[in-house]
């Protein structure tokens, strides 16, 4: 299935990838504006893998601190540099792009890169949502190597990493971005599209667009249950944020901000607690785990219905707590272990919405 994105669809796409971000994935707004400028009156085709059978696609996206990205803006040349570097090392030209991660700003960056480099975009990605670690790429989970790959950071520095597993790559990337600009573009090796898509989540951007359109069709005065229905998810609560607690935990060198958000449902007075890292990970309703990763937890502003990110949620916000189904790719038990709550140190069995 081929999806065409035009300027009027961009707003829906931005909201869609933000919802797939489950509270994380970085600020999509600036990249949405960047994409709108690049796109102009043109159009962008999200291709089905079968449409480009001969392409060698490279999954591409931004890694590192997405908050720094807002302060240290891209120069514009990073995508080109990274793609060239990995092509040269692999000895084959990249003839197509796909997102590393569909949730958050990385759902948009490959589109910008594709416009810049005039390459087709395949609608398949390695996460189907936003996740924090490189070993949570579907390729890594499926046993496919992530290397060789290339990283380029805004001041022009490039490194190529090869012969290392996902954990080693994670460490290499973290130390590189920590000692350079805080973020970098990561481009994986050019791979025949059939193989690349086989171990990837398909159609995430199309889903994001559909979600965004459904969101745009919502009315703020609709009942919370109707809003949940409109987005195809489940309503956990509608109420006020009573407490936001945040603390840093050192986790094998990489420090993720662990935190929790406590919401009291204004109707039933049920107490909803949401455990967070970079994304909303686990929701407890009255102390009972209700929804966990890899399903999507979204907190929407009650008035504007805009998704609120983990780092933006504040005590006193009036919110809707929604759970949306996560990518079905992750639902297989062997894959679930890599992205379920246990993968984030939450000793709790995965709680997933009924498969739709």
């Amino acid at each position: 299935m081929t999806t065409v994105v035009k300027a009027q669809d961009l707003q829906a796409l931005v909201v869609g990838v933000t919802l797939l971000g489950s509270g994380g994935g970085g600020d999509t707004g600036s990249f949405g504006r960047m994409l709108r400028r690049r796109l102009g009156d043109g159009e962008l085709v999200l291709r089905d893998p079968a449409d480009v059978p001969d392409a060698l696609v490279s999954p591409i996206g931004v890694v590192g601190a997405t908050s720094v990205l807002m302060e240290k803006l891209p120069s514009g040349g990073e995508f080109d540099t990274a793609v060239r570097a990995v092509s040269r090392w692999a000895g084959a030209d990249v003839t197509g792009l796909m997102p590393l991660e569909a949730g958050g700003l990385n759902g948009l960056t490959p589109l910008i890169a594709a416009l810049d480099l005039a390459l087709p975009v395949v609608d398949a990605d390695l996460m189907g949502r936003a996740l924090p670690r490189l070993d949570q790429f579907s390729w890594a989970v499926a046993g496919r190597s992530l290397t060789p790959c290339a990283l380029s950071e805004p001041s022009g520095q490039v490194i190529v990493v090869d012969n290392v597993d996902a954990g080693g790559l994670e460490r290499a990337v973290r130390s590189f971005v920590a000692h350079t600009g805080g973020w970098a573009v990561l481009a994986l090796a050019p791979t025949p599209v059939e193989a690349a898509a086989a171990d990837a989540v398909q159609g995430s951007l199309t889903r994001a667009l559909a979600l965004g359109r459904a969101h745009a069709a919502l009315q703020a005065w609709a009942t919370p249950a109707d809003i949940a229905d409109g987005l195809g998810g489940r309503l956990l609560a509608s109420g006020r944020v009573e407490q936001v607690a945040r603390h840093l935990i050192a986790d094998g060198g990489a420090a993720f901000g662990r935190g929790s958000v406590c919401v009291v449902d204004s109707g039933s007075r049920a107490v909803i607690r949401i455990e967070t890292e970079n994304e909303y990970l686990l929701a407890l309703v009255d102390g009972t785990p209700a929804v966990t990763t890899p399903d999507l937890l979204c907190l929407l502003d009650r008035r504007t219905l805009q998704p609120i990110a983990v780092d933006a949620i504040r005590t006193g916000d009036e919110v809707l707590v929604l759970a949306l189904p996560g990518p079905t790719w992750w639902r297989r038990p062997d894959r679930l272990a890599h992205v379920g709550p246990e993968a984030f140190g939450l000793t709790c069995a995965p709680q997933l919405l009924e498969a739709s």
Partner: protein
Amino acid sequence: MRPGLSPSLTAMLTSPGWRDVVVLGGGADPGPRLTGSVVALEVSVHPEPLDGQVLVVLLAGDHTDWRIDALISRASAAGAGAVLLAGVEPLGRGAQLLAERLQLPVLGCPDPLAAHEHLRRVTAEPEVVRSDLVLRAVSALRRANGDLASVLRTTAGVLERPVTLAGADGGTLDGDPLEPEERKALVAALPRVPIGWAAPYRVDLASGAVLIAVAVLGVGPVCWLVARLPAVVPAEVAAVPEVLSVVAPAVGERLALRRLELERDARQRTSLLGELLHGEPSEATRRRAVDLGWQVDGWHTGIRIGADGQVDVAGRRTDVVEAFDAEGLQAVVVEQGDGWSAWITAVSEPTATEVQEQAATIRRVQRRLVQTVDAYVGVGRVQAGPSGIATTLAEAGDAAGLARGRAETGRFLHVDRLGLAQLLLAWTRTDTFQPAAQALLAPIKDQPGDLVTTLAVYLDTESSVAETAAVLGIHRNTAAARIQKIQHLLGVDLTNPDERLALHLASRTTPVE
């Protein structure tokens, strides 16, 4: 789990074994009944049905962790009475809201295992609680040295509850004082005459507190050993009477010893006073008086305090001494018969004003005493020297005898103020008042015309002016004029039979030249 042994959470929180337990969230008054205690290692526990038992979690590192919330939810679903976590750090907001919503108290304690053990015993092994307390009381009492206060302190220490020795009126004799309303409730519940073998009394107060009272039977008046428990923990309410029953004889013994000392001192004082009253004191007597802090020389004012009804003279002496002290009088007080003899010594002879002031002060002393003792008081005149003690005490004794029946003077008489009628009555008993009788006639003594003899004759002749004139060999008009003058000078009315009689007797005591 045994029925009837489940304390409420509020009661448990007052229990000594749960001293360190604090409510972290979901607290209510009086809270659920706690039927027992179940221990779990970690917060990830999935408890069996708990049926009101407390789920004690030994390892609960971070009280803000989401697993605490999940535990609260599971414990509530399992029917726990409460959750007790290791540590007293506050819960996260979510856990607090959840505990309130599920009405499940969440407690914290630095030593959860000890709290668990205590609750388990209280709810499942009350006889262990009881025997443990009794044994600890016995061994602590063996080590407690000496006085009553230390016995009460030791008992309070073992029970970790306030312990009071109360009189029959609920007044505190020793230990921690009772509140007025507790005192009232206690007195209402206790019998006037205790029975030695009666079970200890339990008084439930409106505040939820409980008083346990055991009678202490001994030589003195009845008193009660009372422990105050701030709330009902059934095992404790059952154990405390046993402990008090063990302690009561020890208290009785301490009371008897104290009594013995009192009696010994009293006998010593009484015998010394006996010697002082019999003439000039010997060297040995003077030395013993100095040993007791008595001043034998100087100017003494004797005071006799009598008491109606059965009064423990030796035991109540302290009250008397305290009453004098409270009014700033340095009095020597000695038990004598059915009351006390006392005297106040001044270095120099007091003036008339000082004597009046002192009498007023003694009157205030009596007013203090009347609150506890039905006392009547006589005060003698100021007398000098060792023999003066005997004199003034004798006067005081006579005055006290008069004061006893005279409610109109507040059962207080001071010899210097004795009226005619009392003088007469006293005179019939003793010659103590002879000088006073003379003083009565003093206004007419040195007047021209031998008024004293005229008065004596006039009264002897049945108030006949003519007879008087005849006996004295004077003119009838002269006799009438003298009688008028006498009445004027004495300020009396000779037609009043009482006054006439008093003057008649007084004139007889005065030698007629």
